[in-house]
């Protein structure tokens, strides 16, 4: 018998959780509305079709009228993403296979983890590395390509035409490929690990070589997961901002040489918003909407592809992305039953082979099979090298360039005003980053956890509560897919423009919006892992729902939720794009959350795109080293926690 009091408390608890979840939704909804409002001018001037198909982008013409068309940026986004995937997908498959099948067992985890480190390197550091290392290194080769193949044209498109510029589609695509590589690899790896051993043994027992086993057992099994991972990688590539803004050269070109400059939706927003107003700001905001729509469609597409791979399992599980992709079980309902009459002896099987099989020597397995398997393995080792080498190079550059900067004064003094000076440090940026992370955590962590509680504690499958819970879940998924530059723009339009000034608070809110969905998803997953039996045991003892949540569910899921918060923080701390026009940056030391504030990623960005001197680059690499150390520390803490996080399976 449940008392009246506990019922009321339950009601209050649910209402409280719903209110918090709805506040989060409404707040972001308000910012979105402010953003959409801004785009009105564009649509009324050009129309949706006219804007999207417009090929000219001339915001400040010397003579005549300003023109705003989105097509060059849509083209640039798709082109850089295409080059990136062309490089990343085969390489990721190779690395995933190396770290699940081909490497000796004891090397698989460490190498996989090492590749995962790539994901911890923030975009801005890849931009820095691309400009200072990769571009000069590739220059001779690219010059040669343009001289040799410059004349080639496909339907009038001169693919490799000179002159070769510092920033180009090709180099940007390459760097972008390296950046999405760990994401795609990690998912494919998870999918490959779900291939049952029986499937692998089936191929081996038929006399397959390792590569033949992979080709016939693993790849068919993982196919939809691989496609889903690639599309998810595409989602990443499409939203990537800072590295592209640093590398692509900001020129609104369509079907230009891939060795020349271009611009993407994200990069033009990053580069032009600060100085834009009126029609240009409206057009940039419309570009953000276009970018958001593309990213949204790509993410939905990935979800659908992945769920096709997970067909047969419950709908709620699809959300837990690719971790548990499984095929239909062997005896799924609806398959025919073996009920034809027994007996009627089988036709006799007659072998046709006359000579006995050889099992020794070079003739036992044919040369062509050996060669093909060797070549496949060669490709796999090559992929592994392609994944490991850039990481090693970036790390090397960071340590060799950044370490000399790390004197004690590096942490206590401001950046020098003179770019030639080696004196100075990043004290303002370090403190700024910590303050921004603090603001983001204070906002995103409680909201995220309560939202997750709301989603998971609505157990009834129907009714208005369930509908709201589903709606909130969907909203969180949408947030998860919003490119970070769009988040920056939303906060800029909704808060900075309204308040008439940049502030640390606005920057923190932008980072919180990035953190929030990560926290919700992690917490949601952890809450689901708490065995139903434990909850029911407590409820059977007469505990009201809020009590069960408070004293059973939360303690069990606690470390996991904390892991999610740390991972969200790690992700947010490396972000540059959302800070560009929210916290703005600050040359001086500030702890006032109502004033613009410096941040490490932004300091690296500024030092790279402005006058580059050996001194300013040393400062940038030193800052990069500190930033990566912070991110790795957060990831490491999360990993250590998550080891103890999984509640015992019931």
């Amino acid at each position, binding site marked *: 018998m449940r008392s009246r009091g506990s019922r009321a408390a339950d009601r209050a608890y649910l209402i409280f959780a719903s209110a918090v979840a709805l506040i989060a939704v409404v707040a972001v909804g308000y910012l979105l509305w402010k953003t959409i409002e801004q785009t009105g001018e564009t649509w009324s001037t050009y129309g949706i079709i006219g804007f999207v198909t417009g090929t000219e982008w001339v915001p400040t013409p010397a003579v005549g009228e300003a023109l705003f068309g989105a097509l060059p940026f849509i083209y640039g986004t798709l082109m850089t993403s295409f080059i990136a995937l062309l490089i990343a997908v085969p390489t990721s498959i190779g690395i995933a296979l190396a770290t699940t099948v081909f490497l000796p*067992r004891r090397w698989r985890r460490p190498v996989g983890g090492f590749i995962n480190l790539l994901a911890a390197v923030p975009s801005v550091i890849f931009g820095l590395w691309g400009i200072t290392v990769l571009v000069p290194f590739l220059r001779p080769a690219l010059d040669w390509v343009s001289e040799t193949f410059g004349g080639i044209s496909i339907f009038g498109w001169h693919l490799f035409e000179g002159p070769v510029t510092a920033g180009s589609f090709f180099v940007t695509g390459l760097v972008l490929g390296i950046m999405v590589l760990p994401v795609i690899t990690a998912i494919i790896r998870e999918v490959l690990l779900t291939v*049952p051993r*029986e*499937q692998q*043994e*089936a*191929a*081996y*027992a*038929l*006399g*397959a*070589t390792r590569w*033949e086993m992979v080709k*016939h*057992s693993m790849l*068919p*099994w993982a*196919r939809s997961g691989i496609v889903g991972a690639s599309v998810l990688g595409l989602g990443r590539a499409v939203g990537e901002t800072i590295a592209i803004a640093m590398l692509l050269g900001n020129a609104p070109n369509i079907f230009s040489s891939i060795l020349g400059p271009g611009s993407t939706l994200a990069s033009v927003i990053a580069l032009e918003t600060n100085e834009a107003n009126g029609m240009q700001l409206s057009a940039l905001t419309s570009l953000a909407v276009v970018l958001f729509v593309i990213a949204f469609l790509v993410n939905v597409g990935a979800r659908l592809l992945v769920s096709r791979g997970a067909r047969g399992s419950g709908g709620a599980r699809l959300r837990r992305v690719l971790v548990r992709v499984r*095929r*239909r079980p*062997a*005896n*799924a309902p609806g*398959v*025919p*039953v*073996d*009920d*034809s009459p*027994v*007996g009627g*002896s*089988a*036709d*006799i*099987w*007659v*072998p*046709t*082979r006359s000579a*006995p*099989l*050889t*099992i*020794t*020597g070079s003739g*036992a*397995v*044919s040369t*062509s*099979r050996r060669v093909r398997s060797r070549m496949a393995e060669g490709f796999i080792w090559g992929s592994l090298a392609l994944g490991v080498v850039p990481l090693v190079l970036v790390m090397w550059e960071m340590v060799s360039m950044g370490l000399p900067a790390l004197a004690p004064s590096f942490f206590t003094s401001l950046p020098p005003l003179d770019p030639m000076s080696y004196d100075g440090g990043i004290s303002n940026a370090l403190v700024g980053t910590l303050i921004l992370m603090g603001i983001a955590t204070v906002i995103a962590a409680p909201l995220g956890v309560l939202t997750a509680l709301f989603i998971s504690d609505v157990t009834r499958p129907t009714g208005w509560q369930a509908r709201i819970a589903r709606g909130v879940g969907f909203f969180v998924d949408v947030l998860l897919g919003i490119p970070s530059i769009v988040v920056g723009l939303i906060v800029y339009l909704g808060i900075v423009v309204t308040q008439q000034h940049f502030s640390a608070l606005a920057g923190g809110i932008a980072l919180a919006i990035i953190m929030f969905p990560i926290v919700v998803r992690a917490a949601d997953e952890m809450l689901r892992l708490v065995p139903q039996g434990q909850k029911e045991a407590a409820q059977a003892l007469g505990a009201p729902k809020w009590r069960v949540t408070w004293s059973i569910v939360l303690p069990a899921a606690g470390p996991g939720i904390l892991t999610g918060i740390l991972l969200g923080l790690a992700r947010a701390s490396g972000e540059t794009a959302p800070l560009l026009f929210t916290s703005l940056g600050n040359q001086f030391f500030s702890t006032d959350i109502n004033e613009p504030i410096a941040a490490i990623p932004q300091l690296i960005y500024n030092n790279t795109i402005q006058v580059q001197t050996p001194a300013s680059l040393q400062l940038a690499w030193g800052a990069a080293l500190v930033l990566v150390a912070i991110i790795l520390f957060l990831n490491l803490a999360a990993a250590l926690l998550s080891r103890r996080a999984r509640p015992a399976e019931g």
Partner: protein
Amino acid sequence: MTDHVTTVEGTPDVPAPPGTGVGGGRASAGPTASATPSPAGTSGGPGLVASGLLPMYTRDLSAFFGSHKAIENVTLDFPRNTVTAIIGPSGCGKSTYLRCLNRMHEMVPHARCTGSVYLRDTDIYGKDADPVAVRRAVGMVFQRPNPFPTKSIADNILAGPRFTRAKLDKAQREDLVERTLRGAGLWDEVKNRLQAQAGGLSGGQQQRLCIARALAEEPDVLLMDEPCSALDPQSTMRIEDLIRSIKDRVTIVIVTHNMQQAARVSDFTAFITIANEGEPGRLIETGFTKDVFGNPQQERTEAYVSGRFG
């Protein structure tokens, strides 16, 4: 069915164990003669091997997982075109033993084995033996049916030949598919949907497809690791029918924990067990199936087959 075999005395290359089921579990499934079983342990001579009547035998085979010894010194013969059942309680190492016979055991991390497994006149663990070629010559059917679920029924049959044979034209492929599916007693059920995904078949059909897939490679020996344990009784009966009908063409070694099944399908039975927890499995007794079940020589065998332990 029995092949008329003259037992060859004297085994210069392979020392014969002195008797059945004594001293560390050395024994032999030796009785290969038609009328009267010859003294155990005298088979495995070069004559039998040369004449092709002994396609596979093991000598002092021990298998390990890391430092744990799973089976110890198992010596057994598998005469041509017979079914040998390996029985024993759970965890006695009978599946491990079976997986040593086509070098699948070594796929498990830290797994290794010592001793020798002869495929005709060649030690499959010899220096220049190629595990890939060994597995092509020794087929295997697993506990749970494991067809390639996304491949069609026909492509499942053709999976092995596609690895190993240079080229088959369309007619040859169709012939092979039909011949093996007929051999596996599955043809009438699937002939109209050869291009359908194998994942859509019932469990019993899947297992027969797996047997057909193994047969399509025309192996010398077919290993079956509890092939019916995941199936219903009716499907089990069909598999047992199938085993009886194909043993004229292939030598079968079947691991089973179902003693009735061993009694129904096998010509010879080998009983493996562990004396105490943590000790390796040893071969206790082997011989004609009717003798092992009807007149066991060892006390432990009797206890097991009469259901008193294990």
